[in-house]
């Protein structure tokens, strides 16, 4: 076995550069893809100015709520500066939060809270306004509810004496908890599109597609060595062709698992995304054996590339990452069952695929044995 691996190293040395590129491709592509998506999303953000005439908890609240939206970038300015920038089209529009905002809100008054500036080139003005209005509505609604609770309590002679602030805080807390719950329903790490319609990608999903594709690409060594002129010498060596192939397959699996551990560390550091290591291992074994079987069956490099691309696109579609099949995929459990990427992302062992692959390997082994008998 050590001899076979030493022989493998002689061959690998010649292709070290391309080997390293193929090994790292899924990791690099994921990082590249995500950073591109993020820059593109940033480019599409609309610059909006905010002027705070008063600094109170309520106005800060509003400002932070705007900042969290992923479709605007907010900058805090003086009114003069805001007007100047809107005139020069550096800002899409600007909103002045008027003096007395907090007081008005407390009284449930929704008029005269805002003043706004926009130009003939402002295209996001209306939607930003809508957004602010809905934030204000939420806030005033909350205060109204609090007041109602207090009034009711007085009427019923209650003893708990909640203050308005406590009730608002409680209401926020409940909302926050529900938001967390919503996140649990994320499908395959795709955050539900937020109000701006932008998607957050799970790096492991991108990685899973790329890993499938590049593992098959990487396994063209099997094709090269199955068709190699030197195979005619195998009967006169101490190794059996099937054993030679199996040991090399194991060698590649170990190599890829090592790279996967690096990927795991990178994704954890960069995105704080984790998967179960066992799931990762089973997905990796599955892709390697599948890649091996595909290339041994098709026996031609270009066919294996076509098949690899087709398979990857199928997985992307089944996972709902390309077309809006989201609703369909979540609801049909059989698509989830046959889709190894979706199984992988939900932390399950892709045990059926693995079993099918291992049976495939068994058939391959028996046929090889017959061929060289």
């Amino acid at each position: 076995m050590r001899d076979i691996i030493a022989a493998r190293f002689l061959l690998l040395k010649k292709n070290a550069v391309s080997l390293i590129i193929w090994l790292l491709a899924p990791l690099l592509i994921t990082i590249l893809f995500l950073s591109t998506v993020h820059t593109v999303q940033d480019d599409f953000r609309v610059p909006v100015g905010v002027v705070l005439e008063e600094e109170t908890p309520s106005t800060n609240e509003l400002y932070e709520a705007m900042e969290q939206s992923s479709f605007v970038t907010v900058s805090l300015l003086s009114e003069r500066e805001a007007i100047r920038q809107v005139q020069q089209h550096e800002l899409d529009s600007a909103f002045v939060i008027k003096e007395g905002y907090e007081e008005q809100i407390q009284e449930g008054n929704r008029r005269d809270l805002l003043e706004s500036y926009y130009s003939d080139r402002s295209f996001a003005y209306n939607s930003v306004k809508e957004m602010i209005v809905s934030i204000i509505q939420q806030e005033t609604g909350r205060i109204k509810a609090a007041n109602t609770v207090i009034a009711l309590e007085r009427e019923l002679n209650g003893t708990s004496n909640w203050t308005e602030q406590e009730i608002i805080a409680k209401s926020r807390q409940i909302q926050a908890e529900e938001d967390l719950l919503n996140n649990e329903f994320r499908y395959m790490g795709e955050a539900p599109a937020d109000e701006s319609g932008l998607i957050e990608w799970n790096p492991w999903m991108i990685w899973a597609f790329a890993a499938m594709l590049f593992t098959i690409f990487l396994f063209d060594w099997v094709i090269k060595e199955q068709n190699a002129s030197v195979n005619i010498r195998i009967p006169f060596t101490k190794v059996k062709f099937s054993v030679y192939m199996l040991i090399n397959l194991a060698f590649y699996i170990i190599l890829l698992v090592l790279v996967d551990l690096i990927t795991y560390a990178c994704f954890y550091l960069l995105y704080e995304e984790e998967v179960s290591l066992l799931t990762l291992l089973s997905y990796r074994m599955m892709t390697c054996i599948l890649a091996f079987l595909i290339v041994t069956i098709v026996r031609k490099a270009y066919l294996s590339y076509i098949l690899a691309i087709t398979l990857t696109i199928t997985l992307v579609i089944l996972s709902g990452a390309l077309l809006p099949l989201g609703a369909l995929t979540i609801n049909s459990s059989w698509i989830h069952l046959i889709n190894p990427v979706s199984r992988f992302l939900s932390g399950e062992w892709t045990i059926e695929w693995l079993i099918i692959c291992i049976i495939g390997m068994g058939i391959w082994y028996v046929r090889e044995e017959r061929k060289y008998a």
Partner: protein
Amino acid sequence: MLKIDSISKSFQRKKIIDKLTFEVNKGEIVGLVGENGAGKSTLLNILATTLKPTAGNIYLNEWHYQKDKKTIRKHIGFVPQDIAIWEQLTVEENMKFFEKLSWKKKSVQELKQICLDMSLDRWNEPVKNLSGGMKRKLNLAISLIHDPAVLLLDEPTVGIDLKSRKEIGAYLRKQATENNRIIIYTSHDMDEIKELCDRVITIGEDPFYKELLKEAGKKVLSF
């Protein structure tokens, strides 16, 4: 001693080899001649165990080809007609690669010596830069790593320059006499056959080669 006892081979009812019997002793070089498609490669593949004869028996020393195939294979050096080496590796890496998979351990010095013995001295050269003659030599050197008792060569000198051909011929003669190997090889070069072979076997119906060899006073076995 290699003993071929009445072997026949047909492909889809077409008889290529019909009841062939002969023996080869240690230290002997036997040539196989015949027109293209006569069955020379087929016979060599049968002697290399990679093809089964339709009928007949073959023995190497006391071993039977079918029953002791594994043992037999350890003692066979097969030099294929199509060059079987790694183009992307150097001469050294090719030798090392096949040494790893070989029955016999050899030191780097010993591997290098095999090449030097047939004046293949470009040890660190990638194979793709070598001339045809050099490649043929390496093709032969690899088959010798495990010190085989029987060396089977399918057109080892085809398409190469005269100097390389002479070097390979001299090397084969040395292998037969000094190391007592059995050597069977095919060639279209009649001068080479006449010069090198102790005996010649003609294959096929065409009497052309037989006549030619008889004129040269060679011992000819034909069938």
